[in-house]
């Protein structure tokens, strides 16, 4: 079992629905505009804007960026208290009550995916009532990041156990994959040959971000072809 994600950039329209769905699903705090301008906005799924080439041939690309859930994560190596670790299914998890907030993992992550709770997380009065009860809200002073919606995995596992069957591919889909209107995000077991991600990850278009660092990300991108 090795959970992974394939993002097809040919299909992705850059709409940002995945980022919005993620934020709502995971109770990610919405910071004040002044704070966001300082660079403190919290996005587990971010949309990166990449510029390629110069003006007449300029290409602007939007790339959804979750946590890469590396197989050799640089962040877990440096954590002094095991508040971040790679679990047996390959998900790089965070233990919020354990985190001392040293932010060493943030400094060590080459993809800069982690967010820090600079202030006590707060929600506007309306949104407060819609927080997802399956996901714990974080405390001030801890690091958080994409978990591949691990709470959904727990739910799906319990459901499958209750029904006395094995986990099916579609039982566990993170919010971003679920919400993508273009169907650009596939999610599943990279080691299971019947899963779509396994087939897509062997596509000739498959590439990984900063592959040469040897972090072995489990988020795979399918390049655009013109």
């Amino acid at each position, binding site marked *: 079992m090795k959970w992974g994600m394939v993002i097809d950039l040919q299909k992705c329209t850059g709409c940002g629905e995945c980022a919005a769905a993620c934020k709502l699903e995971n109770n990610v705090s919405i910071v004040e505009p002044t*704070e966001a301008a*300082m*660079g*403190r906005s919290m996005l587990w799924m*971010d949309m*990166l*804007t*990449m*510029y390629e080439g110069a003006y007449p041939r300029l290409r602007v690309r939007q790339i959804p*960026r979750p946590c890469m859930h590396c197989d050799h994560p*640089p962040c877990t*190596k*440096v*954590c*002094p*208290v*095991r*508040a971040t670790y790679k679990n047996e299914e390959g998900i790089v998890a965070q233990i919020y009550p*354990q*985190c*001392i*907030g*040293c*932010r*060493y993992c*943030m*400094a*060590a992550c*080459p*993809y*800069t995916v982690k*967010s*820090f*709770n*600079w*202030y*006590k997380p707060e929600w506007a009065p309306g949104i407060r009532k819609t927080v997802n009860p399956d996901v714990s809200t974080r*405390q*001030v*002073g*801890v*690091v958080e990041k994409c978990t591949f919606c691990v709470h959904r995995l727990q739910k799906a596992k319990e459901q499958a156990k209750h029904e006395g069957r094995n986990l099916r591919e579609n039982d566990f889909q993170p919010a971003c994959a679920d919400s993508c209107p273009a169907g650009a995000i596939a999610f599943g077991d990279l080691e299971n040959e019947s899963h779509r991600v396994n087939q897509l990850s062997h596509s000739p278009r498959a590439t990984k*971000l*900063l592959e040469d*660092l040897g*972090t072995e990300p489990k988020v795979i991108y399918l390049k655009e072809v013109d």
Partner: protein
Amino acid sequence: MERAPAQPHPDYPLLRPIENPGRTFYYIVGVLLAILAYTGYVYVRQILFGLGVTGMAQPVTWGFYIINFVFFIGISHAGTLISAILRLSKAEWRRPITRMAEVITAIVLAIGGLHPIIDLGRPDRMLHLFYNGRLQSPLLWDVTSITAYFTASTIYLYIPMIPDIAILRDRGVKPRWLYEFLSWGWQGTERQHKVLDRAMNILMVVVIPIAVSVHTIISYIFAMTVQPGWHSTIFGPYFVVGAIFSGIAAILVLMIVFRKVFRLEGYLKHIHFNYLGILLLIMSLLWFYFTFSEYLTGYYGHEPNEMRVFWYKFTGAFAPYYWAMVTCNFLVPVILLGIRKFRTITGILFASISVIVGMWLERLIIVVPSLANPRLPYPTGIYIPSHTEWILFLGGVSVFILGYMLFARFFPVISIWEIEEGRHESAKMVNERITSYMPDPQPSSAQE
């Protein structure tokens, strides 16, 4: 050893500040305590509201606290390390310097060691480091080595102080109980001197590798990540050299201050400043050599991410700080210390202050630019430290001044018994040593 209290002590200038502290002492302590009270208020605010009150954000998630941590721990390398090396190499001119140097270590190490805790988002969970600690994390290595260094250097400061505390006890200086307790029944017998010498010898040898390990491991915090500008094999020795460099500058500034305030011209002579000044010059050249090697290899490797950080420092947003650092750490000290005409006490004071500023800038330049240039295209701003961070920096400096003043109020900053020992014995010892270096007058075979 024992003297009647009324008799004038030959080293009275060293005892005067303890026996008659004067009023200015209390004024300065008052000012410092006021600064510290405000610092405390600012820190409590940070605890209540979270690290949001600092200027840190993403991607620059480490700022002043980590910079000052590295800076203060660097300054602490002056003391015990230099004093141990000078004692071990039997440099006779060390006698009036060692105590001052060791006190720097003890105080600054305590301040520096607190900085990572100030930097924590959850200082209330600090104990997780002990009962959930992962020894694979460089942060844990740091906790270990700094604790070891603090323990070793405070003992190394205290042990050679015992005979001096006994002098104060015998002169009946108040508070009596303090000197009574701390002198541990020292009578100055031959056996006690033997034990003291042995303890000092052991500590001297132990403290040097610990001191080297401390700053090496601080550099490992950065070097163990894959970030451009940090992931470098020479970071260990580079940090150690920088630490000793800034430490010597700190000793020199303090020596000049105490010489002036306590009127110690008879003890801290021009020759001491000259020798330490030359040592500072050597360290400046060594620092330049390491900096040059570090950036030249980066430039020739021409790895795109490395180059982004490189140009950020050389011509980008951090260029003013970068070139100020090169000026402060290399140009100013080399000109002021390299030309004999400028190597006066004033010249050395300016060079030392310049080095302290320059080494602080170096820490800034190591920590921030690598974080400010993430590999992926994120919108990045520039890191501007907030009021909170500046006040906590000021507070750290105030704790240092206060700690040093309190030490100087109760204990002699120059080792009295070692000076006395120097007067009585070292001329003979040095003479003997030099004779032993000399070639024998006739071939030893001829004696048979």
